[in-house]
C-alpha cells in the first residue's frame, strides 16, 4: 500500500465518519462542527490530488466563511436539540433505505464503467494555480464577472430578508 493510498483512506474515513456524525447528532451545533471536519478532510483530499488552489478555497470559503455563518445563525437563533414530531412517518421509514439504494446505484454505475477506472495522475503540477487564474480571466471571464453580480444580489437579498419590518 503506497503512502498516498493510506492518506486517501484516512481522509476518506474521516469524511464518512464526519457525515455520519452530521446525521446522528441531535444538536445543530454538533452537526455544524461535524460538517467542518468533512470539509477539512475534503480539502486534504484536494491537496492529495494536487489541486492546491481548490484546497485553499475550500478551507477559506467553506471552512471559514460559510461555516462561521452557520454557527453564527445557530447561536443567534439559540437553536436547541431538534424535537421529534410524528407528522411524517414516511421520511423515517423510507429515507434511509432509499438513500442507501441511491448510493449503491451511483457507486455500481461508477464501478462498472471502465472509463473512470484508470489511475489518477499524480498531479502536483506547480503551475496549476497559474493556469487556473489564466483560464478564469481569459476563457471564463464572463461567468466570473457574472458571479460578482450574483454575490451582490445575494447580499441585497439577505439584507432585505433579514431586516425587521417597519
Amino acid at each position: 500500500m503506497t503512502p498516498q493510498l493510506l492518506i486517501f483512506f484516512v481522509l476518506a474515513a474521516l469524511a464518512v465518519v464526519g457525515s455520519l456524525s452530521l446525521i446522528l447528532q441531535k444538536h445543530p451545533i454538533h452537526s455544524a462542527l461535524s460538517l467542518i471536519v468533512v470539509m477539512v478532510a475534503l480539502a486534504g483530499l484536494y491537496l492529495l490530488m494536487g489541486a492546491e488552489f481548490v484546497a485553499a478555497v475550500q478551507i477559506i470559503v467553506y471552512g471559514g466563511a460559510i461555516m462561521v455563518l452557520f454557527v453564527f445563525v445557530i447561536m443567534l437563533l439559540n437553536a436547541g436539540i431538534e424535537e421529534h414530531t410524528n407528522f411524517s412517518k414516511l421520511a423515517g421509514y423510507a429515507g434511509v433505505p432509499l438513500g442507501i439504494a441511491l448510493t449503491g446505484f451511483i457507486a455500481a454505475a461508477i464501478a462498472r464503467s471502465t472509463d473512470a477506472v484508470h489511475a489518477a495522475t499524480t498531479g502536483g503540477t506547480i503551475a496549476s494555480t497559474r493556469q487556473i487564474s489564466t483560464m478564469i480571466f481569459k476563457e471564463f471571464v464572463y461567468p466570473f464577472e457574472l458571479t460578482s453580480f450574483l454575490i451582490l444580489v445575494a447580499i441585497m437579498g439577505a439584507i432585505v430578508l433579514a431586516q425587521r419590518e417597519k
Partner: protein
Amino acid sequence: MVPTSYYVILSAVLFGLGVIAFIFKRNIISIFMSIELMLNAVNLAFVAFSQSKDNLDGQIFVLFVIIVAAAEAAVGLGIIILIARNRQSLNVERVDLLKL
C-alpha cells in the same frame, strides 16, 4: 497513486449520506447543512475527473460551485432567520403554510 474511481465512489457515498441527512433531519438548519454536504460531494467528483482527464475546467467549475454555495448560504440563512422569527420554531414540520 489513488485510482479516480475511489474518489468518485467516496463522492457517491458522501452524496448519499447528504441525501439521507436531508430526508432524516427535522431541523431546518441541519437540512441546509446537508445540502452543503451534497455540494461538497459533487465538488470532489469534479476535482477527481479534472485530475484524471488532466483538464483544469473541473477545478474552475468547483470554484463557481463554491461561489454559488456562498450566495445560497447568505440568502438561505436570511430565510431561516425570517422563518424562526415568524414561527418561533426551526422545525420544518411546523412550516406547512403551503400544505394542502
